[in-house]
């Protein structure tokens, strides 16, 4: 077990980066960026996990009766999931603009247009 979650997070991040670099379609590239984002969530939550613990939400358990996991990383991840989605939307809006201006969403074709 030990480091498996961290390695999975690293794998997801690298896979997303590979997709970003080789993408032939900007919409696909935005999707790959979303994959990269999810790697950070996995890493943060893995850092905060504690064996045999439960969530630090005391609406249905007595405080102190069970060990709890780290809430700080959860709070960081929680806000980022929603904010990340709106940033994805912003990037997609940029893609729509690019397609209007240049008539293509292939990054290779775009660099040919400019150069």
């Amino acid at each position, binding site marked *: 077990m030990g480091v498996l979650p961290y390695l999975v997070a690293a794998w997801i991040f690298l896979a997303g980066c590979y997709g970003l670099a080789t993408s032939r379609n900007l919409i696909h590239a935005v999707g790959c960026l979303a994959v990269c984002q999810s790697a950070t969530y996995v890493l943060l939550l893995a850092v905060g996990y504690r064996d045999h613990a*439960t*969530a630090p*939400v005391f*609406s*249905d*358990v007595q405080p102190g009766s069970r060990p709890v996991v780290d809430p700080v990383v959860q709070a960081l991840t929680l806000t980022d999931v929603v904010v990340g989605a709106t940033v994805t939307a912003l990037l997609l809006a940029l893609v729509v603009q690019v397609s209007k201006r240049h008539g293509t969403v292939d990054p290779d074709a775009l660099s040919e247009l400019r150069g």
Partner: protein
Amino acid sequence: MNGWILAATVALGTGLGTALWGVATGPLRRRVVAQNMSTALACPALLLLSQGYARPSYVDLALVLALLGPVGTLVFARLLADDLADDPPRAWGVTWVVAGFGAVVVGAVCAATGPSPEMVKLLVIGALLIGGNVLASRALSGGFPGAGRG
């Protein structure tokens, strides 16, 4: 690890594994069905996990998934209607098997909870899950008959 979590592990490993295979390969009609199955399987699994961890408050996740899972499938059914119209998915067998699994899980969790307000919530989730899942399958196989115009 108790029986609930073991059941969830098996359901997730086999069910979601199969759904992933379905969504990664094959024609579009198979992929959308697999996407629908993934939400319909994850929702009972979340109920099992909630019971296994003895945390009734985790049930909220299953409630939200039971509501939004079919909405997600409707998104695909609506916006991919043009592509699906030529080759509509016909997967009622899988749909009913997964719906039956959901019903069994809801029943088991209800039996373990006993009569209480929580049980009402579980029954609502069960109804939303099965109704939404079946309806989403219906929407995929020709829910938007005027495809290609809007």
